[in-house]
């Protein structure tokens, strides 16, 4: 694996030419894929068959989810991918069954706050590390990277107590408060991007009398919209999916105050026959589908960012 770090967002992003020596050939691997595809027809057929089967396996649970959400209660478990009795009224009844509007609104607002805060703070910190020279900079950046290794379980308990002592339990602050301070992986990503910006730009602005913050605000930020978007959607997804924090900080509150993941967990129990429910799983499936859709939409828009972001994560090692 290359130890060279590359600008994260990939070819879709107009990355200014990085200073010489920043990249090496690892960033632009030779793209002669043709050579790897199987030569024989039988080989190709086999390859495509396997890939199609795997696709079916990956898609099946999602297709099943969609089908089940459209079935009446007693047909959910018939496992037909096309409902025998088409039951779109589930989508209307679910709003009376579960406070979905509150859940989705809560989750959405928290995710927006979390993503905005972490994008802003990480960019600020990343600019500090990328542009300025100060004693201990590299040591501190090493620390940033090292914190990525800290298991969440270790700080879970004391962080709860810190929020408790600050008197903000019962509010949303513990769910995104940490994001005020930047997040290691995003700082790393954004710093890489800033390092790719030509330094001459900043020099010119300095000569024109721009302040340090002006450099960040008027030059660095506008040029890094693509990578800021990456950070934003990554964090939006992370926050949208976050179950554990919601369990810790919101579970004791009212059902209306739940986030979407906590709400789904609640619904799974509410309708469970072992728990006195009627087995109305079609409602759970509708709710599940509705909280999954925003992520699929996000993916449709930012597909390349997601996949390349993850690949960068691996490459940074």
């Amino acid at each position, binding site marked *: 694996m290359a130890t*060279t770090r590359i600008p994260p967002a990939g070819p879709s992003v107009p990355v200014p030419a990085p200073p010489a020596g920043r990249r090496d050939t690892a960033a632009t691997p030779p793209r002669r894929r043709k050579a790897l595809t199987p030569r024989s027809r039988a080989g190709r057929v086999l390859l495509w068959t396997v890939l199609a089967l795997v696709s079916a396996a990956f898609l099946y649970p999602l297709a099943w989810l969609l089908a089940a959400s459209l079935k009446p209660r007693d047909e959910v478990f018939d496992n037909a991918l096309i409902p025998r009795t088409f039951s779109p009224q589930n989508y209307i009844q679910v709003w009376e069954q579960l406070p979905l509007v509150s859940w989705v609104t809560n989750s959405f607002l928290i995710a927006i706050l979390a993503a905005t805060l972490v994008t802003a703070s990480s960019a600020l910190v990343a600019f500090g590390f990328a542009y300025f020279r100060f004693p201990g900079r590299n040591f501190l950046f090493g620390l940033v990277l090292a914190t990525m290794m800290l298991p969440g379980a270790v700080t*879970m308990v004391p962080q709860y107590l810190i929020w408790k002592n600050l008197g903000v339990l019962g509010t949303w602050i513990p769910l995104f408060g940490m994001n005020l301070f930047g997040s290691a992986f995003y700082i790393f990503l954004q710093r890489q991007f800033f390092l790719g910006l030509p330094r001459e730009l*900043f020099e010119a602005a300095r000569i024109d009398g721009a302040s340090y913050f002006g450099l960040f605000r008027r030059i660095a930020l506008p040029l890094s919209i693509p990578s800021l978007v990456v950070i934003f959607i990554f964090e939006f997804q992370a926050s949208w999916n976050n179950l554990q924090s919601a369990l810790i900080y919101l579970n004791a509150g009212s059902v209306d105050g739940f986030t979407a993941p906590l709400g*789904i967990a609640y619904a799974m129990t509410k309708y469970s026959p072992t728990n006195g429910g009627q087995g109305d799983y079609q409602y759970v499936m509708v709710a599940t589908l509705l909280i999954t859709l925003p992520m699929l939409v996000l993916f449709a828009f930012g597909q390349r960012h997601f996949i390349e972001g993850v*690949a960068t994560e*691996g490459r940074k090692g």
Partner: protein
Amino acid sequence: MHVSCPMWRMVWEFENGVPLVGAEVTAGAASAGATSRPKRARNKYNRREALAGYLFISPWIVGFLVFMLGAMAYSLVISFSHYNLATNVAKPAGLKNYALLFEDPKVATSLANTLFYAVLAVPLEICVALGLALLLNRVGRGAGFFRTVYYLPKMTPSVATAAVFLLLLNGNTGAINQALGFFGITGPQWLIDPAWVKPSIVLMTLWGVSGTMVIFLAALKSVPRELYEVASLDGAGPVRKFFNITLPMISGAVFFNVIVLTIAALQVFDQAYLLFWRDQTNASPEASLFYGIYLFQQAFREFNFGFAAAMAWVLFVLILLISLIQVKIGNRFVYYEGEKR
């Protein structure tokens, strides 16, 4: 988020040759501001610029001091005390909490379950992800399509995955057992039979294996094609090429994934909570008690913060030890591109 060995090397490189003190303002450097400076002035810092740098990174410094370092120190103190949540008083308890860890059979059970899960899940995830990446790497056009399809489960929130698999894995009417029945196999009671608790979670994890796959795919793409051509000339078959070229060339990615997946597996929580622990009707409480679950219960359901903090520290040390062993083993096999220079 994650770490791997070369990262430490990177950190080490950064530290080399960079003095931690020695800020000394010279007239020349000050007038040049933050812009390019002569090489000889490397060791001198412009005070204004340094100050601005510290200001820019100050959010992280505060967060690190309070929510990382502070939190860890706090957690260490609490692990040696009886902490009363209502009065906010931590009475010193010496090693009591740690002693309790050894007396409580549930700690041992949860640890054994977690390790068993990790040993089952990590190799399977690596193999499946690598297998899929190898397949995708052989597709010319259309690879993007399959990559998208394979990535969809990764976008599905973990609660959604759990909600669907709760029904798919139903022992009597679930789709998975019906499919097995089609081949004449009587499927197990996935979520009830203690022996099938971990395989159920592994199955769900495998459905979302595409993140790992994408990392492998990126690594495969950077293997120089020339190596394969040369090997072909020497008469190497596909199996030899895989073991003598592909695997060594992507060993860094394998290593990274193993470490990251192990750390994640040792903290397994969401799926176990949603499938087994969200209410009081868990059919196999013994087999589904994972370390992260028990830690969570002790902290936020029983409010035994001292005990939970001690559990967290044991987990931290365990993860550190396992990662160190993996690094030790990894260093023997992993090939880093940087080293050839």
